[in-house]
């Protein structure tokens, strides 16, 4: 017997998800029916589908009522993240479409590369669009439920899509290597998380985070949830790229096609953080006070290692990989200062939410710039490739400088507003030491964030003129990111307000 009312409310609760899933299926079909010209068509279909999903996500955000429907939670927090990941997906589509077109155009110069498979094809790659859509669906499932098994399925949906995306550039052996590494390491992490979930179920007999406050813990088995939590933390730290679970990050980020790296650094991280906040809130009801210390240790390690290791990199992508590690550190700092006498207070996560939004804009923007840096059939993302970019491609260099300055956290960019929010919470809650550490490591980070500026502007003209227009989709995403970085920087109040509304939904 099918309950129609139930289906309708389920439909409403997950409207953006259904739209995205449907679009993904249509994209698969389109790509299959017109394999030759399909790339562009699939891109348009996927883009429109995402835009429609974004529209409905916004409407849900504005409508305000919370719809809890069995396995789906549609509260303010979820909707905030839905909007954010769809934005990330859209920008990723724009970045990747142009990237593969550029890579194709450059390699079309009579080399045997032209005969290679889909990635060697000109134009946007249809599979990439489909994968992006399914990855975004996975991300939403990752946090849009309070049922740990649904979360896990979301995680796997997302991860599988991203594994393939990482290995998408089939001509580049590094891309394949990265996919392999990511897959092996990622499987271990997934296993950790799953084992943690199962152990937790064994200990408390509950999969649903919202029911945790009802469970009873027997003192003689209190170690069980602790082990479970550690395993789960291991899984989370892996996905969030936190030290000491970060070793895969530089290799994978460097090997993956540039836009995909941007997608991983933002989308995957945002989704994982969303679930992480939910889990931390639920863990308040378990005797796991030690979590806050684990988080703090992890913050210290991440900030130091991430920022120091970034200094010696020669490849901008690799540098940005370490940069994303250290930003994950700042985000975790924002969460770890939410602990007051062993209990996590989710309302401080408003700063983290705002930081995530700002971080996504500047990181995607930076990777969008790198996506243009394609030279002679390969990515030109060494620091040396940036030499004189300020003269040969002034617009590109200017926006890249903007994103670097924002990542560093200099006003009037969003990077400053975001860091200010995190540090001020840290100081207010009495975590002076962590705040000082954050500021010191920010100063260290100036070294590697300003280095591209030096290369672009103060190292003379480029050896050879690398001209070329910026493709339209990329221009779109660059302009969007640049405007967002400045707008959120000088007038952050409305977005902080959004983040606060979302943060209060975590309970």
């Amino acid at each position, binding site marked *: 017997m099918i309950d129609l009312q139930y289906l309708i409310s389920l439909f409403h609760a997950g409207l953006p998800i259904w739209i995205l899933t449907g679009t993904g299926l249509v994209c698969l079909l389109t790509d299959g029916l017109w394999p030759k010209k399909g790339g562009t068509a699939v891109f348009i279909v996927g883009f429109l589908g995402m835009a429609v999903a974004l529209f409905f996500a916004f409407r849900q955000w504005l409508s305000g009522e919370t719809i809890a429907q069995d396995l789906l939670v549609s509260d303010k927090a979820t909707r905030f993240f839905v909007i954010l990941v769809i934005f990330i997906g859209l920008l990723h589509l724009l970045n990747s479409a142009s990237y593969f077109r550029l890579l194709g155009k450059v390699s079309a110069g009579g080399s045997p590369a032209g005969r290679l498979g889909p990635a060697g094809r000109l134009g946007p790659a249809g599979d990439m669009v489909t994968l992006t859509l399914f990855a975004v669906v996975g991300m939403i499932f990752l946090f849009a439920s309070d049922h740990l098994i649904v979360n896990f399925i979301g995680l796997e949906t997302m991860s599988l899509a991203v594994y393939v995306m990482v290995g998408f550039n089939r001509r580049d052996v590094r891309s394949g290597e990265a996919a392999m590494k990511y897959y092996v*390491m990622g499987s271990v992490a997934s296993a950790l998380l799953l084992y943690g979930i199962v152990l937790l179920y064994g200990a408390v007999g509950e999969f649903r985070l919202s029911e945790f406050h009802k469970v009873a813990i027997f003192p003689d088995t209190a170690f069980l949830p*602790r082990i479970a*939590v550690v395993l789960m933390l*291991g899984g989370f730290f892996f996905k969030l790229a936190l030290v000491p679970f970060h*070793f895969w990050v530089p290799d994978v980020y460097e090997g993956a096609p540039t836009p995909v790296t941007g997608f991983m650094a933002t989308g995957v991280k945002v989704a994982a953080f969303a679930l992480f906040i939910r889990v931390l809130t639920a863990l308040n009801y378990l005797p796991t006070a030690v979590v806050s210390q684990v988080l703090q240790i992890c913050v210290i390690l991440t900030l130091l290692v991430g920022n*120091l*290791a970034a*200094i010696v990199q020669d490849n901008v992508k690799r540098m940005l990989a370490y940069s994303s590690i250290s930003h994950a550190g700042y985000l975790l700092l924002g969460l770890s200062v939410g602990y007051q006498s062993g209990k996590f207070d989710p309302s401080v996560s408003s700063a983290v939410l705002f930081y995530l939004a700002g971080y996504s804009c500047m990181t995607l923007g930076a990777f969008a710039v790198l996506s243009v840096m394609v030279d002679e059939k390969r990515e030109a993302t060494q620091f040396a490739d940036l030499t004189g970019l300020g003269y040969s491609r002034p617009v590109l260099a200017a926006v890249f400088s903007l994103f670097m300055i924002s990542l560093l956290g200099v006003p009037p960019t969003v990077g400053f507003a975001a860091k200010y929010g995190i540090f001020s919470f840290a100081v207010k809650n009495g975590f002076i030491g962590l705040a000082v550490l954050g500021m010191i490591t920010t100063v260290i980070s100036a070294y590697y964030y300003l280095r591209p500026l030096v290369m672009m502007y103060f190292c003379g003209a480029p050896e050879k003129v690398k001209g070329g227009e910026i493709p339209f989709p990329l221009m779109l995403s660059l302009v969007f990111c640049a405007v967002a970085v400045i707008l959120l920087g000088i*007038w952050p*109040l409305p977005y902080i307000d959004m983040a606060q509304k979302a943060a209060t939904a975590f309970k």
Partner: protein
Amino acid sequence: MINFPTQLISLIPALPLVGFLLNSAIALAWARRRKAGPEIIPSVIGCLFPIASFVLAVWAFLTLKGMEEGASLSSGPLLTWLDVPLVSVDFAFLIDPLSSVMMLVVTGVGSLIHIYSIGYMKKDDGFARYFSYLNLFLFFMLLLVMGDNLLVLFVGWEGVGLCSYLLIGFWFTDPQKAACGKKAFVVNRIGDFGFLIGLFLILYAFGLQGQADGDPLSRSFFSYSYLAANKEWLAPLATAITLCLFVGATGKSAQIPLYVWLPDAMAGPTPVSALIHAATMVTAGIYMVARLGFLFALAPFTLQVISCIGLATALMAALIGLTQFDIKKVLAYSTVSQLGYMFLALGVGAYSAAIFHLVTHAFFKACLFLGSGSVIHACHDQDIRNMGGLFKKMPVTATTFLVSTLAIAGIPPLAGFFSKDEILWNTFLYGSWPFYGVALFTAGITAFYMFRLFVTTFLGKTRHPHPDHLHESPWVMTIPLIILAVLAAVGGFLGVPEVLGGHNRFHHWLAAVMPPSVGHEGNPALELGLMGLSTFWALVISLISVALYRRNLNWPAVITERFRSVYNLVLEKFRVDELYDALIIRPIRVVSEKFLWKISDEKLFDGFLVHGWTDMAGFSARVLSRIQTGLVGHYLLYLWVALVALLIFTVK
């Protein structure tokens, strides 16, 4: 009449901004094509938006006039700019008597100068760029005068500084002109630093009161209404705050010691000199002090400093003006001198007199500058020794120039007479004989050098190498001149003092927002007497000047021979630039090079701190990257080690 709807307030500054955006797009398009298009498009865009602003400003002014005394139009918070526990700042506009006067001057004189520029900038490569800068300037200037709090004012303050820099160095391919722009920017930066410290001190003073929490309204420390309502909290720091703010004013309004940039600012196109460096931007400091009059009234010491500096600047600049031969330089020093007068008025507590002089000065000085622009346009030269006899060639320019010269010299009944006399009278009432004496003396010098300028430029025989090429400027340039000359002639009737049977409407208009004048009630007979004295003085000096220069342009040669060293000192502008160079710039360079660079930077910071740190960081980074082998097996091992460590830590 329909009342001005407050929703439209933000349109007044927004319109020039739209003009700026459109003109920048055109400028970019032209630059991309490497070919300029028809000049009509940017000129129409560039002029229409300011004129529309002006119309709105007039409408707002009339509405305000119809309301009861002390009323104001407020846009309300357009958006909350900042709302942190420390302070809350709204982006909001306020039209009260003071800002309405400023708006009328800025948009009115601004529009005229925009129109004039169409003729002056004709066939310039950067035509569209010029208009986009000029529109941007109007936008920032309107922010400055219309903002309802100090931070919006500061945004405008910095914005006009930027536009001034861009326009002084408009012909940036000439390194000398670019350097002038840079000088203006750097000197202004020093003043702005003082201004910023003043703002921080205000924040600090309110912070001391423990008002940090509560609703945003109780934290909007920078809004004028809040400042005025809670000024007693600022009282302990008032002297420090106002001195810092005044440092900002000396930068923007070219007073001792920071006036040195203004004469060099003449490198920009002449309409720019008229708009920015005579009529509007340089008066921002006067506006700011008048706006915060209630705060300055708490700091008598600061007011004394202001009056001294104003007077000294007025005298010194006037003396330098006597000796200059560049037509624009004379006017530039004259501007510095007149600004000194306004500060003198502020210092003696006569706020409305200062604003009155600001307005009339905007009329006649803009007219003088535009007139000089017209002359330069014809002669392609700025040296008055190569001019002469232009009256016949350029009758309109010469007539308007004469009217403005009479006005600035203080000959009744032209505008300058009323405003200057009010300053003199208030200085007298202030009770300081030496001040009055020096101010009167300076007024005489002003009359002298202005007539020297007029006679040398327009009368006598022409000394131009190609007298046949000289011609009157086109109508787009002469019509603004005529309008400004008329304003310079009749503008004074806005504030005819009571003793002459007037009502001093200007004073009453501002009375609601200004603290009352500090001076004592004067004796009407005495006022009339002093008025007669200053009129007589101005007339006599003017006639002497005309007589001397009509007879022989080189008559000062005898005197200058006699007092060669003094004359040279004045001619070289009291060598203030050289003094700054020797006292400040060179020591800074020496210290920078010998100590900061060679010792502090290279040895301490680079050698020890930077390389020490980076060596350490580099070492640890290398260790880290050594761990980063690239082998999945190793990575998995690390993962397990980390996990086991975590487990032991947690479960122990």
